[in-house]
């Protein structure tokens, strides 16, 4: 459609008009609908799968079980971070002898319409012999053991003036995007065409090609809009094999749209950890060492992230503090629950909660203001760059630059935190339960090793950007269009962005780990610079002036000092047949953004409910390409992080039955629960590792929420360090000293 006014984002017109193209918006003639039959028990031997009634059901094309599968291995790990053998724990595409969680795919039904497929799926009978379900993380089988650290931790604890120890638990949460997963695959002209992949399409294409034993070129992935990612969408799941395989096998398009109840038991969960954490201080209250032992719940299988979340938990745990000695150990355990992956801020949300809670407890024990204890131990600008002697996702950790203490001061000043504190003290004196809390954290972003991008000035004058990044709703099309436009003297609206289509974007890595603006952004910048140089040379020929005397703005070149001697990019493209450049941006280190979360809450003594009176985030991003989008990322992340602190949890019965299988049970926050969130975007410390100077901003809105809300609830209750679990149990408030809630 033509657009009358400029919109904030290039994605907006189609999405606002209802003309987006999400996977379920694509229907093909003659398509079959696929329904997955899932295990209803947590742990059992699978004796028999009786499909006879399902096959006889009206409208059914076929029913497929594990016995019908070709020779195909389990789903491989995408992110190998440690030298750990994980093959024994990988998930098969359909269960055969054993089922290991409620929701595990056991069979699939193909039918002419989704209603018929769902009816028939309910007629498939699983004959099982139930086995014990061990849900306790400390009792569960272990898939991997991780350990990392530096310095002499034991001596530090032996010589410490003060040692503090505590245990903390983070519940199971997940991204729960508003659009569930879905996939459409169709055999066409000797190729398999697929709609609905995102996040890491090129990687998933390689996995699928390998499992189907066909060349990658025979698989074409189409671009599609995606209704939110947050880590969970776009990994390779069992359905990512089953749908294309059955399309190839039947010779017909096969479509699968996950329903919400499936999503809540089938898509990756995350976060569930227990931390037993200790800190040693000298007599001046300086940290000597931190030691953390983590039980990390991987669920029933190891999925595509391998042991990434446990690895990141350990590597990021010391955060923005001066920690002379550190030891982190993680037990990656298997429990009969939905397998786990990443969720916005993986490992950092959990580790920040544990570390910041411990510091709050320590401050109380040492008789210090929690902020003063932190200020004393924060890394100062002159200690950076710091080579920490840890590795994160296989990259050596170098905390490049920054001033965390300076950001803390600015955030406190801008938020009005001192006013919140004074107000809380006054209201507590009147018997109300009001409190404040702070959390400081370090993030990571811009994971390498590389990303591909291309910029083309087509003969028609259209500027087209292609990149390996993918759109998950975060606005990456606008960011990449803005980067290219800045370099070509255009507006973002003048640039067409193509992502996620493997015919137009032959190579790419994808969008995860807050990497797209850093990796794809810098690749686009480099490619656009080269196109601008080609165009400049052409303009110099046309205008018969020295290339150095040309200025690029408003979509064309102008000779210095002459209004008449101008030529537009479109005209140059028409004369020359256009220009194009492809670039690969490579980087072997991550960047480390950091931030502050501040919370102001009131606890209702009768219900235990927590109302947020104020929330503020200060975040160092290096450079904000489109500030409104950075703010949107931070506020949206905070809504998720706050909900993880107060509302969201996947609960299970003792025998492994999931209790959170609708959105009435798994409580996403509404506009009624998410408070106004103030944001300070700091651009004081551009990243040195990339030309744009950007540090990714996708996750820091969530990272500090659990820690900050817990601290504020503690303060409101007048019981420092009492909140030890997320989401915060309502009974915490009701156990308060005044007894009014009993």
């Amino acid at each position: 459609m033509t657009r009358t006014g400029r919109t904030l984002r290039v994605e907006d017109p189609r999405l606002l008009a209802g003309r987006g193209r999400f996977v379920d918006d694509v229907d093909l003639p003659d398509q079959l609908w696929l329904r997955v039959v899932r295990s209803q028990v947590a742990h059992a031997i699978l004796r028999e799968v009786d499909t006879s009634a399902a096959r006889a059901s009206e409208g059914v094309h076929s029913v497929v079980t594990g016995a019908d599968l070709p020779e195909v291995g389990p789903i491989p790990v995408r992110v190998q971070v440690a030298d750990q053998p994980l093959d024994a724990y990988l998930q098969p595409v359909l269960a055969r002898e054993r089922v290991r969680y409620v929701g595990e795919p056991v069979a699939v039904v193909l039918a002419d319409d989704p209603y018929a497929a769902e009816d028939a799926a309910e007629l498939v009978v699983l004959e099982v012999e139930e086995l014990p379900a061990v849900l306790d993380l400390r009792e569960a089988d272990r898939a991997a053991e991780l350990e990392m650290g530096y310095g002499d931790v034991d001596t530090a604890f032996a010589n410490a003036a003060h040692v503090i120890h505590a245990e903390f638990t983070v519940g199971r949460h997940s991204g729960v995007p508003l659009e569930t997963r879905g996939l459409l695959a169709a055999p066409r002209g000797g190729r398999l065409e697929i709609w609905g992949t995102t996040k890491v399409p090129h990687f998933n294409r390689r996995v699928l090609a390998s499992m189907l034993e066909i060349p990658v070129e025979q698989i074409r992935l189409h671009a599609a809009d995606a209704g939110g990612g947050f880590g969970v969408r776009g990994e390779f799941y069992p359905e990512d094999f089953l749908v294309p395989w059955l399309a190839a096998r039947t010779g017909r398009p096969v479509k699968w749209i996950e329903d919400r109840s499936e999503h809540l038991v089938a898509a990756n969960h995350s976060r569930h950890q227990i931390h037993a954490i200790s800190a040693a201080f000298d007599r001046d209250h300086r940290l000597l060492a931190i030691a953390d032992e983590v039980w990390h719940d991987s669920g029933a299988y190891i999925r595509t992230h391998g042991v990434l979340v446990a690895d990141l938990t350990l590597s990021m745990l010391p955060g923005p503090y001066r920690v002379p000695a550190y030891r982190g150990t993680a037990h990656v355990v298997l429990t009969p629950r939905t397998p786990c992956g990443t969720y916005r801020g993986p490992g950092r949300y959990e580790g920040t909660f544990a570390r910041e809670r411990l510091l709050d407890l320590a401050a109380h024990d040492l008789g210090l203001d929690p902020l003063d204890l932190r200020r004393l131990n924060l890394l100062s600008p002159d200690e950076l760059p710091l080579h920490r002697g840890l590795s994160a996702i296989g990259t050596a950790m170098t905390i490049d630059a920054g001033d965390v203490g300076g950001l803390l001061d600015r955030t406190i000043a801008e938020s009005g935190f001192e006013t919140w504190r004074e107000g809380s003290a006054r209201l507590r004196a009147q018997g109300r339960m009001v409190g404040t809390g702070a959390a400081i954290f370090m993030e990571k972003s811009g994971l390498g090793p590389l990303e591909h991008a291309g910029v083309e000035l087509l003969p028609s004058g259209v500027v087209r950007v292609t990149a390996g990044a993918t759109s998950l709703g975060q606005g990456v099309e606008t960011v990449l269009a803005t980067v290219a436009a800045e370099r070509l003297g255009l507006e973002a609206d003048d640039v067409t962005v193509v992502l996620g289509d493997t015919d137009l974007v032959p190579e790419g890595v994808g969008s995860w780990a807050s990497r797209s603006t850093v990796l794809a952004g810098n690749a686009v910048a480099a490619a656009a610079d080269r196109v601008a140089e080609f165009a400049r040379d052409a303009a110099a020929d046309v205008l018969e002036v020295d290339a150095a005397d040309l200025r690029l703005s408003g979509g064309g070149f102008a000779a210095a000092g002459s209004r008449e001697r101008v030529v537009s990019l479109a005209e140059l493209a028409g004369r020359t047949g256009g220009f194009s450049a492809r670039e690969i941006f490579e980087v072997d280190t991550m960047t480390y953004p950091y931030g502050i979360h501040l919370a102001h809450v009131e606890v209702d003594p009768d219900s235990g409910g927590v109302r947020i009176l104020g929330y503020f985030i200060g975040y160092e991003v290096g450079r904000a390409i489109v500030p409104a989008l950075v703010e949107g990322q931070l506020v949206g992340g905070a809504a998720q992080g706050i909900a993880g602190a107060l509302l969201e949890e996947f609960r299970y019965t003792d025998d492994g039955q999931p209790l959170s299988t609708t959105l009435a049970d798994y409580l996403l926050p509404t506009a009624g629960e998410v408070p106004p969130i103030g944001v300070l975007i700091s651009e004081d410390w551009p990243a040195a590792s990339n030309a744009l100077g950007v540090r990714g901003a996708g996750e820091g809105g969530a990272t500090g929420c659990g820690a900050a809300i817990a601290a504020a609830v503690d303060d409101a209750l007048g019981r420092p360090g009492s909140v030890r679990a997320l989401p915060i149990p309502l009974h915490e408030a009701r156990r308060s000293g005044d007894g009014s809630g009993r």
Partner: protein
Amino acid sequence: MIERQRVTLTVNGTEHTVEVEPRRTLVDVLRHDLGYTGTHVGCEQGVCGSCTVLLDGEPVRSCLVFGVQADAADVRTVEGLGDQEHLSPLQEIFSSSHALQCGFCTPGFLMLATAFLRDHPSPSDEEIREAMASNLCRCTGYQNILRAVRLAADAVADPSTEP
């Protein structure tokens, strides 16, 4: 044998006749039988509101309405808010306020807000918050949605104020 019933409904001013199973939801009729794919399905449980459309002027969750219940009804979907050339003022304010990210919940919020602003031309901030709490958004954290509805209400109250 699955029985089908004939249903005639008007969508954004265009009359359609379809033969549907009695159990087929209105949202499936709109999306898969009639091609109005701007209305989205987020939960099929009536919780998220992504499928909100106006049925005879009132916002409903079209996953909780059967297609046969829409016989002779007038349905408005997001495709009917603007025209081929232009976004509606509310849609434009959603963009300028950055009230959408992935855009999946957005059609539902637009339809909800359309009916709300018609019935509450001068809403308080609390009324806006309460009404918009009917639907779920997983990306924005809601603040920009509330701001967009506020600005849209103010623009109607005083058309001279540019949002």
